[in-house]
């Protein structure tokens, strides 16, 4: 019985040794999330514009109805999103928008520090999402 105790506690005490802690001293130390992490969205740019063609599939599939798209025609006669806004307060980070996008114009980044002071600051417009 004593043997079993020792074995178990050795694991516990091992964690107390320097270099064995899983706690990270956030915010001075930051973890890099996995590649598949679903953080803040990003609109992917192409050469001279955003890749997005304003097909309205993301606002349609979005279960939280947090995406607003308004399509328009640019000088070249192409369809582009005149307005593309994500209301992050409503977003549930499900990633359906990324899945639905037929042109891979939206992706989710590793950015997870999304706290802010004003409600307006959670409205991510096209310009902010393209950064």
């Amino acid at each position, binding site marked *: 019985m004593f043997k079993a105790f020792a074995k178990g506690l050795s694991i516990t005490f091992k964690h107390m040794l320097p270099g064995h802690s899983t706690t990270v001293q956030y915010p001075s130390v930051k973890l890099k999330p996995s590649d598949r992490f679903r953080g803040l969205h990003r609109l992917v740019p192409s050469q001279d514009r955003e890749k997005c*063609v*304003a*097909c*309205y*599939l993301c606002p*349609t599939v979005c279960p939280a109805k947090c995406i607003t798209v308004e*399509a*328009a*025609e640019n000088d070249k*006669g*192409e*369809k582009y999103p005149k307005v593309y806004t994500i209301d992050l307060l409503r977003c549930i980070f499900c990633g359906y928008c990324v899945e639905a996008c*037929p*042109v891979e114009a939206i992706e989710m980044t590793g950015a997870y520090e999304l706290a802010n002071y004003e409600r307006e600051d959670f409205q991510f417009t096209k310009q902010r999402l393209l950064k």
Partner: protein
Amino acid sequence: MVNLTIDGKQVTVSKTATIYEAAKEVGISIPVLCYAKKLMPYGACRFCLVQVEQMKGRLIPACTTPVSEGMVVTTISDEIKKVRKTVMEFLLVNHVLDCPVCDKGGECDLQDLAYELESTSNRFEGEKFDLPTDEVNPLIERNMNRCVLCGRCARVCDEVVGYGSYSFINRGFETKIATAYDRGLSCEFCGQCVSMCPVGAILPRPFKFKARPWQLKEVDSVCGYCGNGCTLTLGVLNNKVETIRFNDKIGVNDGNLCVRGRFGYSYVNHDERLTKPLLRKDGELVEAEWDEALQVVADGLANAQKGQGAGILSGARLTNEELFVLKQFAKTLGTQNLDHSGGECYKGVTEGLKETIGISASTGTFPQIEKANVILAIRSDFYETHPVVGMVVNQAIRRNEAKLLVLADKRGKLSKLPGAKTLLTKPGLELDILNAMARVLLDEGLAQTEGVDGIADLQAALANFSPAQVAERTGVSAEQLQAAARQLAGAKNSAILMAYGLPYQGLNKELATAAANLALLAGIPGREGSGLYLCGEKANSQGAIDLGILPQGNGMGAQAMFTAAAAGQLDALYVVGEDPLSSYPDRDRIAKALDKVPFLVVQDLFLSPTAQQADVVLPATSFAEKDGTFTNAERRIQRVRRGISSPGQARADGAILTALAGKLGSSLAFTGPAAIFAEIGKAVPAYATCSFNEIGPQGVVWGGESLQPASRKVVAVAGGSEVEGDFRLVTGSALYHSGTVSTKAKGPMAVLAEPYVELSREDAKALKVADGDLLKVAGNGVELKLKAKVGNRLPKGVLFAPYHFAEAQVNRLYKGEAVIAVKVSK
């Protein structure tokens, strides 16, 4: 009837049905791209291939194969699925994968089919099309890269519209749909091809990139323009009418629309819509609150009534319910001076038809025209005023080999239809021809005189209308005349069509009477399948007549009101939904009357020229913002439904009138259109046949499909008189516009933005004018400068000017006569 088995289900259908239609009957859907209900079977896409037990060894196209007794059909099997998938692969070899940017995405037949057939890969490789898009016109965009060559656009343009813009050109892989010389689309822009295209090859430009189909709220309503009463399905997004959706399941128009119906909706979203009541203070119109404005109107009208009286003038685009409230309001106010639409143009119905056949309405319904054997259109402008009825005429000719006779002073769309015989008369002499045709019927014993009164009088009156005499006067040969009369009398079913409206005021009553005479002699009124149609220019012209928005008792009509006002004998005028200054004949007289009348109230959508003269302007709502009913020219009562809310503080006419009546101390109040409709039923027995909520998707035709005439009496009418002079001007409606409100709509304005005067090539040559030159047109003591439009449809010496454009002031020249003698110079 034929019995057959489809997928194990027993079906009994008529022997003219195809396998596709039979399958649809029992709820089995066979995929199709090229099939459309209203078009002839074509068999272009090969998606509808099915197996038939009796025709083993190959697959049979369901949409072109008629059913036969004992057929055993299998609509789905592994083999069929494989073949359909291969057809899809063939189509997708060249088809661009534009779905994310294609406006058809979400309601595309090809997309749906590809999904259904699970086409995810393609065994064939080929180059994607890279053809330039056709954007030469402002309303319809054609992207031939997306075309699947089903031919629906080419067929609908030919079979239904009768225009023939499109055709297949080239062969093999290069095949495409093109316009003449591949120059791009330039047509009447009815947009039937847009509604028929199963893919995104033909799309409405005003709606480009505006929304996805699944985002739109669909509201079924009735078009607010002409008296044809086409059902419209409004596509509403964010409280704005963004487009008109294709819908062939409801209404009388089978999904057909004209340029106004399909592209003329944008005036409801116009920036210049009135949003607040305006009051004239110190000579300026300033915004005011409703309560204040209504009080001023109520006081003004009540004071006028104590003095020399007030008059009420209404338009014919109010709903039946609003017209009823208007009539009640007139009673509350105590005035008998009530009228609509200028007071003259509808007299063919209220007087001409009333005196002869005893009713004030068309006797048949539009679907019957398609079955008619002989159709007589009086004034070729019928297509311009009622394009969708014109399409029915075209279908009658193409499907049922109907004979079309056009009696007019100019050629038009109808004259170009296959086999159409145009009796081209000098302007103003249509009457003589109708009289001569009546005489031919009487002389040759073809007339049905039994039970018709006044035959002897008519015979005497027609002494001077022998075909030879009339031929000399009108320029239509006697043989043509006789042949036309014989055709009309000999037909099993025939239809006589005539349009009326503000620009067709002259000789309106006489023409209607002569047409009714002819109809009676040919036995048309009341005969099943035949009809005499007098079609109003506005959406609810018939409703206004049915509800009696006419002078009450000894009251004054519109013209009398203007005369009285100009003489200072009318103290107030309340104009609801009309712009007399822009659209009524004799503008100068109207202007004088409006100037003189001490108190003028205008209730309208826009600050029209008339409204600018007003003391109070009340903002009203368009057809898309209200509930109610319209009665179309064939007596069909249809529901108008609210699709959007009104801009600013604009209120429905009915609500304004009720509030005004309240200010005058009346207890006039209704819980809604249904309650008013029930009240209408009490006042107008014809409307008591159904309740408001019983009006179905096809509407309710009061009086039945064939309205029986209340009397049969022919009334002699004198002939027209020829107008002297080198040039004679006639006014009318242009195809792209209806009334004056369409000049606020982007679609019609994109096609026809400016007023013009049309003349023949011969005259243009003689006057040395080219298209677009300014012409001086002088007559009736007025000279106007109008842009010349040179065309083929007018005979020498005849000019035509549309009346829609207020700024052109054509109604200064036009004082209500049928023909105006003018002088033309460069």
